[in-house]
């Protein structure tokens, strides 16, 4: 693929598209945005394959690009929402301020859909590092070791992040149930 082999690139996209899309949709919780960012991820891979030195596994490198791109997209969207708020306050902007909170991951079992919807909603307010660890572990099903490799942390640091993520989710869910 480093030599610009188109067939190798196509094979790679076909083999890894689920990995990238599933990771990205876990963060963005919107299939259209996730598709858009997935395309961006593969373009970045195509353009920067020369920078991949093989110090980590190719999949780890791909996860890093996917996570960074998804978070970048969320930041940009956040800025747009803030400017949208100003437009709404001072103009006649009709842009919605938040995505409707009814995202259901397409891979969730049918009987778990309502619970998963609540969980994904609660995940949105986790601190960034906890959100990354939780999404990679729970949505993408990575082991602690793999999450640690992607995030460049030790396994114990990942364990701690996941523990705190669960505590925070529990608090958020308790609060929403009491309301």
């Amino acid at each position, binding site marked *: 693929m480093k030599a610009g082999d188109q067939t190798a690139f196509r094979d790679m996209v076909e083999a890894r598209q689920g990995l990238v899309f599933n990771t990205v949709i876990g963060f963005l919780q919107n299939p259209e945005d996730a598709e858009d960012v997935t395309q961006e991820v593969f373009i970045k891979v195509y353009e920067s394959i020369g920078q991949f030195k093989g110090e980590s596994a190719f999949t780890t490198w791909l996860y890093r690009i996917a996570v960074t791109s998804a978070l970048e997209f969320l930041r940009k969207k956040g800025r747009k929402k803030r400017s949208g708020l100003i437009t709404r306050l001072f103009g006649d902007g009709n842009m919605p301020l938040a995505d409707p909170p009814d995202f259901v991951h397409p891979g969730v079992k049918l009987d778990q859909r309502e619970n*998963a919807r609540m969980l994904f909603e609660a995940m949105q307010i986790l601190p960034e590092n906890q959100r990354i660890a939780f999404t990679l572990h729970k949505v993408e099903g990575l082991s602690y070791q793999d999450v640690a490799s992607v995030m460049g942390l030790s396994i114990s640091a990942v364990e701690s992040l996941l523990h705190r993520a669960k505590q925070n989710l529990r608090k958020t869910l308790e609060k929403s*149930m009491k309301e």
Partner: protein
Amino acid sequence: MQTGSHHEVNIDLILDSLEGMERAQPRPFLHTRVMARMEQNRRNPWVQTWNFVSRPAVSLTIIAGLMLLNFITLYQRTNDRSAIREESIASVGVEYEAQFVSYYAINDEQP
């Protein structure tokens, strides 16, 4: 109204709701759409410019150039200011000398 322990059970169920989930897949022919987007980007001059400027070597050169320009301007301003200060001190000195008339000169006395 739900009790506290009932809430606990519900929360545990919610936290475990992603167990056994399957991977989400994008729409078919993603590769074709990726290639089309790359082609579109190649034709867009803004994307080309941004890609060029966002290269680390180019952006670092631009930043270094701006900083150098900043230092040169600052250096020139400092030099100009000290030259003006010296000039004004000299002119004050000349003016003071011209205006200064000694007491002895006025009274035509010897010190």
